[in-house]
């Protein structure tokens, strides 16, 4: 059985579950919050582990409402087993161009008065 549960979302990006960590999770907060969300209901428990109750195709078409609740609840109450990667097209290009000007994004500045 695969140790990873992975699926793509509508806006571009993917959600990755490390099921080897989920085995030891007692709360399964991801499933709880997913089923509390109107339009969610992507996750269910199968043999004690998170699994999909919708097809990957329907999830990619918007079946997951991308509330990000699973990742945050897992981080807070579970074992930090979920990673949601949501790329922004051309954002890296922006950061490269910004660097060339000698400027940094505000979140990288240590001295906020500079």
């Amino acid at each position, binding site marked *: 059985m695969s140790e990873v549960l992975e699926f793509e979302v509508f806006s571009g990006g993917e959600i990755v579950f490390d099921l080897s960590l989920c085995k030891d999770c007692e709360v399964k907060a991801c499933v709880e919050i997913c089923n509390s969300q109107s339009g969610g209901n992507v996750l269910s428990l199968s043999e004690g582990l998170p699994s999909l109750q919708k097809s990957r195709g329907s999830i990619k078409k918007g079946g997951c409402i991308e*509330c990000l609740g699973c990742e945050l609840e897992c981080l807070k109450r579970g074992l930090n087993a979920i990673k949601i990667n949501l790329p922004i097209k051309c954002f890296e290009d922006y950061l490269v161009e910004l660097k060339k000007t000698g400027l940094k994004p*505000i979140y990288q500045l240590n001295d906020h008065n500079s």
Partner: protein
Amino acid sequence: MPRLYEYQAKKLFEKHKVNIPSGIVIDSIKKAENAHNTIGASKVVLKAQVKKGKRGKEGLIEFSSSATETEEKTKKIINRIVEQYSEKSILVEEAIDFKEEMYISIFSDSHTRKPVVMFSLKGGVDVEELSISEDIYYFNLDIGKPYYLFNALNDMRKIKNLNSKLLNMLAGLLVKLYMIYLEYDCNLVEINPLVVGEKGLIALDGKISVDDDALFRQKELGFDQHSEIGIRKPTLLELCAGTIDEGDHRGSAHFVQIDPDGLESFEQGLTPIGFNSVGTGAALTTMDELIPMGYNPINFCDTSGNPPASKLYRVTKLIFSQPHIKGYLMVSCVSSQQLDNTARGIVKALLELYPETEGKPNVPCVFAFRGALDKEARRVFEEFGITDSPHVLFLERDWTEKDAVEAFHKLYSDFYKA
């Protein structure tokens, strides 16, 4: 709203058999002479391709009677538009003789939620000065029904002082314009001036803007921007932001840099801050409160219509990647959207941007939530310890825009005093 250049609008007119003057787009002085000779008219008009009105009054439209003159005037116009608007295209067109100018447009009326046809026998410059009651005719179209020539004839017959020949021509034109309006998801299709020439009705100028929520299916129009950003080119950050809504109809994330390099703030002695809002009305009211208090929101951002948290995540990363901001203010209107999702998007972004402080930002931040699930939004912020930072304030439910700005001001003052 994304708007086509005049020459692009005219290409769509031509495709739909609307008469336009023969013309050539040039982007250098070298091409001017050849363009003049190719058109072969005794007189040509040179029109700067910038997305703004009243170009004639600004000297961005010139007439020429010889190739040499065309070259000289091209040089003059190109130098101006490169400097002022970072544009370099000029439409060289056959100059058309005409006696009278008319005006016709179809636009999306948010009040009636219908396309509205507006027509006047007095078009041209300063058409907006006309009296609505006397000089301008307008009527709604039913977007759910087809619009045939006989419908257009019936509608246009209500206009006084139209002879039958002109009535027939106008009705035919109206059907074509409505096809353009529908086919390209427009919110404005305008011809001004519309004149009668030898070939019939001729569109001497055209304006077409497209509903930005429909851009994902209007790729052939070639827009590289997804927001209303005026007449300048979009910044790289705006282009990034434009991709967030691309193909994702769930709510919106409109992001525009008002002062991309922070220079305007510096010149006006204002403090640049990042800004986000749920609802444009709340955004404008808050921005109006910010300026007198000495803060310049250097970006506008509206994330409303119940977007997924992923949109908030992405847009928050963009806002905090601006190098000049000295603080951040987020406000919501009394919103029906799921504000807990809004909060999750912001919190995920902060956790990633500030891993060393576990999401606590390095600039003063006010998060002002009002509306559905705002208590849950607070819980999300509190649970992740974001509100433990002395530089973060979370406001819930009972506040006004002025309260939010005053709270931000106090936070900001304390932060930079420390």
